[in-house]
């Protein structure tokens, strides 16, 4: 009964802002990079995120009974180019959490599986400029029956999601600007208990989860071997409620977060099958989330089935 805490919208803010923008061979649902036809690429990305301050509603605070909350994970990401304008990609994560103070035990387990179809219906060049439009659709669901009602140490929120995203990419020589917006339709989740209070008492184990929107603006250098981009991310929960003073966080809280970060990808000149990725981000504004600072690093390998 002692630890008050808070969650951060782990699954998507985390998975999207940190695991995204990985590599040319490991495009994500948020970048404007496409793989070529019959190209297959996969790899692992390790991520580390931690915070010692969080927003309890709009009140920023620390919690000596949590100390620093750290989430780590490894994500496996396969991608395949059906055509150079139509890619499919998936990801699956193993995640573990811990708190540096207090008595609460961290959790660990397989988190979510996501599958995306990425389609580039429009790509027009104007001299040194190129404009592309993308449409993406995806689905994600938990890979295990992990505990969602133990925030901030739960490894995810447990929703099944349907994600639709539109994206515009502008390239001038090697400088790109990419903007995208996504709507995340989230399923209800079930708890291990059969009653809960959000802003009123509910006699059910089922929690109505508000949908969410996600926005991203990214810009940088897109070279043959090096990609370097700065990112501005926003996750906005379309509904939900604030954590009341000193209360526990809850899956259907109104979790909002804005973060800035960088992502780098480098393809080895000596072996263009192999690329290394890395990046970092920090949260600059939030509500009912931890003020997370995160970094990630990974390695990807590309296969060319047909030339």
């Amino acid at each position, binding site marked *: 009964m*002692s630890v008050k805490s808070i969650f951060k919208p782990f699954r998507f803010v985390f998975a999207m802002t940190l695991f995204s923008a990985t590599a040319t061979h490991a495009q994500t649902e948020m970048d404007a990079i496409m793989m070529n036809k019959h190209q297959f690429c996969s790899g692992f990305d390790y991520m580390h995120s931690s915070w010692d301050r969080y927003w309890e509603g709009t009140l920023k605070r620390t919690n000596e009974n949590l100390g620093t909350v750290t989430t780590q994970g490894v994500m496996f990401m396969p991608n395949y180019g059906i055509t150079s304008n139509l890619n499919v990609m998936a990801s699956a994560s193993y995640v573990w959490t811990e708190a540096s103070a207090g008595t609460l035990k961290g959790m660990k387990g397989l988190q979510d599986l996501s599958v995306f179809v990425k389609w580039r219906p429009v790509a027009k060049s104007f001299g040194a400029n190129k404009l592309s439009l993308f449409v993406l659709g995806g689905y994600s669901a938990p890979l295990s029956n992990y505990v969602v009602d133990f925030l901030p140490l739960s490894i995810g929120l447990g929703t099944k999601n*349907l994600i639709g995203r539109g994206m515009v990419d502008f390239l001038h020589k090697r400088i790109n600007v990419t903007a995208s917006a996504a709507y995340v339709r989230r399923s209800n989740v079930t708890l291990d208990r059969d009653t809960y209070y959000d802003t009123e008492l509910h006699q059910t184990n089922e929690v109505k989860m508000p949908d969410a929107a996600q926005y991203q603006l990214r810009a940088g250098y897109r070279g043959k071997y090096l990609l370097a981009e700065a990112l501005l991310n926003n996750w906005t929960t379309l509904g939900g409620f604030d954590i009341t003073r000193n209360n526990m966080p809850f899956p259907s809280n109104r979790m909002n977060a804005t973060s800035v970060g960088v992502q780098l990808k480098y393809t080895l000149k000596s072996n263009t099958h192999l690329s290394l990725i890395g990046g970092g981000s920090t949260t600059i504004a939030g509500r009912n989330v931890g003020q997370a600072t995160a970094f990630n690093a990974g390695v990807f390998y590309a296969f060319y089935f047909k030339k």
Partner: protein
Amino acid sequence: MKKIFSLSILVAGAGLLVLSCSKAITEHTADAAALNPANIDLNAGVWKPVLLSSPTDVAVPAPIAATTPDYIAQINEIKTWQADLTTDEKDLVKYWSAGAVLRWNEIMRELVAKHNVPPAQNADGTYPAPNANNPLAYPTFPFANPPYAARAYAYVAAAQYDALVSAWYYKKLYNRPAPYKVDAALAVLVPKSELPSYPSEDAVVEGASVEMLKLLFPGDQDFIQQKAEEHRRARLIAGANVRSDLEAGEALGRAVAQKFVTRARGDRAGTAGGSQVLWTQLETDCIARGETPWISQESPKRPPMLPVFGKVKGFLVDSLACIALRPAAPPSASSTKMKNETEEIYQLVKNPTREQIRIVHFWADGVGTATPPGHWNAIAADDFITKNWSEVRWARNMALLNMALMDAAIVCWETKFYYFNPRPSQLNPAIKTLTGLPNFPSYISGHSTFSGAAAAFLGHVVPERASQYQAMANEASVSRMYGGIHYRSDCEQGLVVGKNVGQFAINRAQADGAE
């Protein structure tokens, strides 16, 4: 291109499918059927009250005759409502028809859950205490922790019960028929009953609840008064009561509850929080006995929860019986037995199974919940719904259950602060917990004591479910070991003490005239 086209159709189709999926949730008492008692318990006016010396302690004047213009006007008031009912009004009737005791019990659980949040610390590391005289200022009053909640449920339920016993006495005495018996043309939206309608049992429960809740949840009057207004209106709209049935019932309920308010002001709960002097004394006394004292593992250290709650005046268990119920001392912190018990908990929490975590969380009933007593109220309500009991029998069984739970809290807290022994994670900091660590001594487990008491009493009034109640109590008890916050001896002794407290409620049940 064709492939792309069909793919995008597929994606869009899947999207529409998910978007069209409803997120609507049906909560499990939302559609509870209207209460239609198999037995109206017409003679419940002679049942033994808790606090009243007689059902006539509060006078209820004789009702006006059904032939008077005033009464006919009251019938017409109902007809006017019924001529133009909105969906919301029909929903109100449906909601309240499930039972007055049931719905006010749910409202209580909602208030407890809302207020079951420990205050945040001050900037200097001390903790503020909620102030009943200024309930809306932070920290809002009350902090509805388990002992506070157990006492609140008991007072509300006992006040409802005594007021209903009195109401039944007057119902039989005055024998005023329900409005739909007087005027056969009147539509009635709830099951008809042979029970005399004056004073209204619904308004009795509403009046008693509102009056008790002014004391227990003084900052939530807007919410409570709205529920009360809706409750009275639902009965009127339904054609179940005329206005004078409701007014007499509400007045009776309030007057009876006043007697419980007076008792509550003198039951020593107001001083249960203790003081710095006392908190230090508990520690030094424990050291003087050669034992390891409990230490708060919150940061900054929080004073223990209601250390003098063991001195609160129980309804069933008096102070001497309370001491007699206290179990023998726990194993010494330095003993081999305690080392083994600590190791057992360490092993349990090291690699918990998913099922163990489910059990921990199902029974955790921690911050932001209706507490373990509230959980047992929910379990009881679910089964009582199937019984088709009269309101007075509902109230009697809820009162006995909640008096047992309150007294279980008293005996448990008396024991906890008598021995003042440490939690497993104090003796072995490597023990990480799967639920919040309660901020008070370990021996005996509150969940086990509550559950033992509830299971014993519920097994008496719903005997066909006795073995399930015991299985639930055992699971609630062991959940505290799985959670890493209690030793085996805390849980086993808690169940025994709880069962013994539950026997007090059974003894009373066998002598109150209702069986």
